[in-house]
């Protein structure tokens, strides 16, 4: 027993120390915040511009990769915390984020081991061209999230439809003219149908896009088209909400 108590105490002290150390490390290596880390690598870029060397190029490469890690972590948190993403879309996005991060981790190891300036320059270019975090992955996550949110709104509007239909029936039974209210409700339902119709095909079109397709010029138009369609879908949903309120007001 005499030997056990000091051993236990030592274990607790060691465990606590490890916790403190790991917390300190986590704080020390926390990637830069912000949706894209814009401007984070300005100093490193300026150093390369002033005089490209293995050290300055490596620092710039590491910085660019780290800010992408920060962005990817934010995206991963957003996907895992989403209440509107379907499970399959969330899984696909999580897998894409994971593979992108894995690839960038390998590239970082390559950059850290590289000693040739031309090779380092080529590796740094790959950070952008091979992964397309900001012009492809980020829009993919956002647009698929928006599409699934539009689709999810159908459930809410369905409940609104049930509620308003009952009110209209009650008002009609009471001898009230419900023509305007019914027209508003019909408009609401039509707007929701249109919005869902715009959004439904988008995840299947967006999720398979690759950096190679972006580099080849075929992914960009898909992203642009999806953004336009989702803007229209959002407007339809806003109109649907206004129709629902108008329907309720018409019954007062």
């Amino acid at each position, binding site marked *: 027993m005499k030997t056990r108590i000091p051993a236990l105490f030592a274990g607790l002290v060691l465990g606590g120390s490890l916790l403190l150390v790991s917390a300190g490390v986590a704080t020390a290596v926390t990637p830069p915040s912000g949706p894209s880390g814009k401007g984070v690598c300005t100093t490193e870029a300026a150093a390369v511009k002033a005089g490209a060397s293995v050290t300055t190029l490596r620092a710039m490469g590491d910085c660019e990769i780290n800010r992408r890690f920060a962005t990817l972590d934010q995206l991963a948190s957003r996907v895992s915390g989403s209440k509107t993403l379907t499970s399959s879309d969330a899984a696909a996005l999580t897998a894409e984020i994971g593979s992108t991060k894995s690839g960038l981790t390998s590239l970082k190891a390559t950059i850290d081991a590289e000693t040739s300036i031309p090779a380092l320059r080529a590796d740094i270019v790959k950070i952008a061209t091979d992964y397309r975090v900001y012009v492809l992955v980020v829009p993919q996550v956002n647009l698929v999230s928006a599409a699934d949110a539009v689709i999810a709104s159908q459930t809410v509007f369905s409940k609104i439809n049930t509620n308003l239909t009952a009110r209209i029936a009650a008002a009609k039974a009471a001898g009230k003219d419900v023509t305007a209210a019914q027209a508003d409700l019909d408009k609401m339902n039509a707007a929701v149908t249109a919005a869902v119709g715009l959004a439904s095909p988008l995840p299947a079109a967006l999720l398979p896009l690759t950096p190679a397709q972006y580099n080849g010029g075929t992914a960009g138009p898909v992203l642009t088209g999806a953004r336009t369609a989702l*803007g229209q879908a959002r407007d339809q949903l806003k109109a649907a909400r206004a129709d629902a309120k108008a329907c309720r007001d018409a019954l007062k």
Partner: protein
Amino acid sequence: MKRPVSSITRLTAMALLVGVAAMGCARHGGGAANGPTSSTPAVEAARTETAATLAPTPAPTTADVTPAPSDATPSTGSSSVPAATTDPLDTLLSNTDALLNGIDSSLSGSDASASAGE
């Protein structure tokens, strides 16, 4: 030397016990006017039965208690607390607001030009 002392102690103790018992019996049985001091088995049985009859009813166990319906409305709770009057439609419309805000946020975040370039 030890054995005589032990025997004397035992004898004394026994004598004391017998004496105490005899005094107790004499008091419990009362005098000659109250009848015999020693009770028969029949009398003992009657006493036990009477005591059992007069004993307080044991508290019911949980297994004996019929549970109240779970959907029973509390008589005091519902009358003292005013019912919530939130219109379900307001809640649903608020839900659409939240969804639309999320869509707006996603759309603004999807704009590549708004983020740092590659």
